[in-house]
């Protein structure tokens, strides 16, 4: 059983192609920026972070975790967690380290990014999308329809790229949170809203998604146990990720750093 599970990979050629194009595109921009005199170490780190983000994305969707997401809610939850809490911050870290202050972006794109990554907007988008997709009707639709399932994953990724941006972009111009108090408040709000959803799943007395009780070999009781595990995965791993994010993103306040530098 475990042997079968471990080797149950789901290779998706269109996805592999898309990820390869994204990596090549990034490498092209990276090579151009590096040749213009960007700091070499920072630049290499950007490439490593972005590549790691794409690899985690591929692993979460095509590995046994993703391959079993329609059989076990707990696997589906791990897949979502990897997209939101590992892939998204890695992609943001990689991109931001390269684009630095964003002055090379077209003005209209810069304004759009600034709007979307405003902390209130970013928090609202990530929260609304996370909760909306976990509504039984939307979740059921995604499980029954592969393209909708793909849109669900993509929207989680985009929503959390937007969520992490204000934290990771703090030293730069676009949408960065400027004070430690604001960063703590933002992280806490993010941890609490996803934690509450995880708690609701953990303590629910009946399965939210009937699909998992109808999988061959499953019962209502096993689906409920799996749902509890899924809720705990979301709640506990989220707490660890947010604590790590706090440790990594809470730096000396920007204004003071600027004052000292000046």
């Amino acid at each position, binding site marked *: 059983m475990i042997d079968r599970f471990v080797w149950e990979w789901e290779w998706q050629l269109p996805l592999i192609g898309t990820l390869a194009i994204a990596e090549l595109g990034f490498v092209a921009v990276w090579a151009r920026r590096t040749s213009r005199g960007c700091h070499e170490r920072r630049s290499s780190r950007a490439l490593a972070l972005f590549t790691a983000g794409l690899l985690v994305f591929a692993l979460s969707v095509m590995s046994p975790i993703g391959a079993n997401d329609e059989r076990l809610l707990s696997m589906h939850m791990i897949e979502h967690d990897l997209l939101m809490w590992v892939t998204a911050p890695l992609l943001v870290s990689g991109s931001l380290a390269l684009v630095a202050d964003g002055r090379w972006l077209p003005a209209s794109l810069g304004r759009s990014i600034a709007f979307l990554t405003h902390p209130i907007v970013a928090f609202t988008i990530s929260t609304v999308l996370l909760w909306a997709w976990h509504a039984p009707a939307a979740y059921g639709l995604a499980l029954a329809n592969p393209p909708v399932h793909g849109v669900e994953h993509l929207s989680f990724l985009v929503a959390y790229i937007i969520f992490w941006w204000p934290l990771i972009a703090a030293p730069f111009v676009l949408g960065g949170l400027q004070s430690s108090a604001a960063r703590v408040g933002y992280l806490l709000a993010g*941890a609490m809203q996803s934690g509450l959803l995880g*708690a609701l799943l*953990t303590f629910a007395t009946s399965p939210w998604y009937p699909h998992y009780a109808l999988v061959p070999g499953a019962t209502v009781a096993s689906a409920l146990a799996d749902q*509890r595990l899924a809720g705990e995965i979301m709640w506990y791993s989220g*707490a660890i990720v947010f*604590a790590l994010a706090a*440790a990594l993103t809470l730096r*000396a306040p920007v204004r003071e750093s600027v004052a000292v530098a000046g």
Partner: protein
Amino acid sequence: MTAAERTVSTTLLAHDRSNGAALRASMAYMVAGLGSVLLMGLLGLLMRLDQAGMLVISPAWFYRVMTLHGSGMIAAVLLAALGGIAAAVSATTPLSARALWIALFVYLMGNGFVIFATLVGGFGGGWTVLYPLPEHGIVWSLQAALAIYAGYFFVALGLLLFCVHMLFAMARAHGSLAKALAWRFLFSLGRDKRDALPRPAELIAVVIAIDGIAAAAAGLIYLVPLFAQASGVITSVDALFAKNFVLLFGHTMANLSIYITAGLVYAALPAYTGRAWPTTWPVAAAWNLIIPLMLLNYSHHLYADFAQPLGLQLLGEIGSYAVALPSFIVTIIGALALIYRSGMRWTVAPILYALGLWGWVFGGLGALLDATIPVNQVMHNTLWVPAHFHTYFVLGALAFALAYLCFILDDLSDISERRGAPTAAWLYGIGGAGFILMFFVSGANSVPRRFAVHLTEWQVYARMAVPFVLLLALSLAWLSWDLATRFGSAWQATRRPFAGQ
């Protein structure tokens, strides 16, 4: 406002704007802590209304609320106290704002776990989560118990981060831990003054950092076997082991709040009285003694456990008595001597400090009685116990913490306290005293604690307490409003260079 209009002595102001980032983090601790106190206080009001028969809450919900109120209050007051002591020492000790913010985040996330475990998960086993009861709850699931444990884990981790940082910062600032504890001065009976002595607040910060690390370690030692059991690695945990460690963790946390806020008296009262409060030999001796004594007195909560070794029971009694003496004699007599004929103006902070000293004395006497084994066997399961710790908290630690926040605002804010604010402080004292007195009377009349449903003949005490609780809530809201209107200006002041420096 001119300097002459200030209510505090500018020569004794403590808050260093050059470390504004750490000071802001400390203020955030205080605001988060005191804000949580208000919310937890509302839960307390619900419980008292239920016990008075004026509001009907189902027993399942009563115990959820009781658990959240108890654990939340301990965490909230401790948080405010930690912020206060960090602010007090930030003037002379380079604290890392980053470390303070990270510890705060982890600590608050732990609180989130406890909130969800109780309100969503239905956990109602009390803040003590006495093993094995939580894991065999009928009303709540094992997941709810695990969530409470996870919450405690993060709270303990946040406390540990804070205390480790404080300890290292102090040791670095003074050259060594021994110097930060004034040991050369202490062991030479005050004759050897070669080392620069730490200020009392700094000495207390080191003491509480050491005990805080011990308390957090006890919490983590308690949690590891419980998680191991939940995951099936071990089959059972020794209940007496679990009880000793959870009380060493939780009781010490509650004690820490009280003793840290005592440190805030040393830090602020001199500014209002215009008299210095240096580290004398009795101060150094008293606070060094607190280090071992604070870790011993939890055992008075286990007198009813027949399996507890007699030596630990006696140690609990001796520790409970001994811990009172240095703190009472040195801090309270010292504070009264400082106030006596000082010409101090009775603004909000001094009023709250005076109330806090009063609460410390009466709460301490109640605790001493409860720590006496024959009395404990009669009184420990009555409302006498909530009476003594509510006295410590409402009229002790909370009053001191509020007073210290007032002190920060008196120091930093451009906005003076409003004319009516001292009235709110006095009303706080009256409300608090009446509320607590009814607990003491109930305890003396053997009304049991932790009962969701009270007999009709018990309800009279709760009914008499309700108006005082409402007065307490009203006065706290009034004080909070006054503090909130002055807070923004003080926050901004931490970003500006100080003319006096």
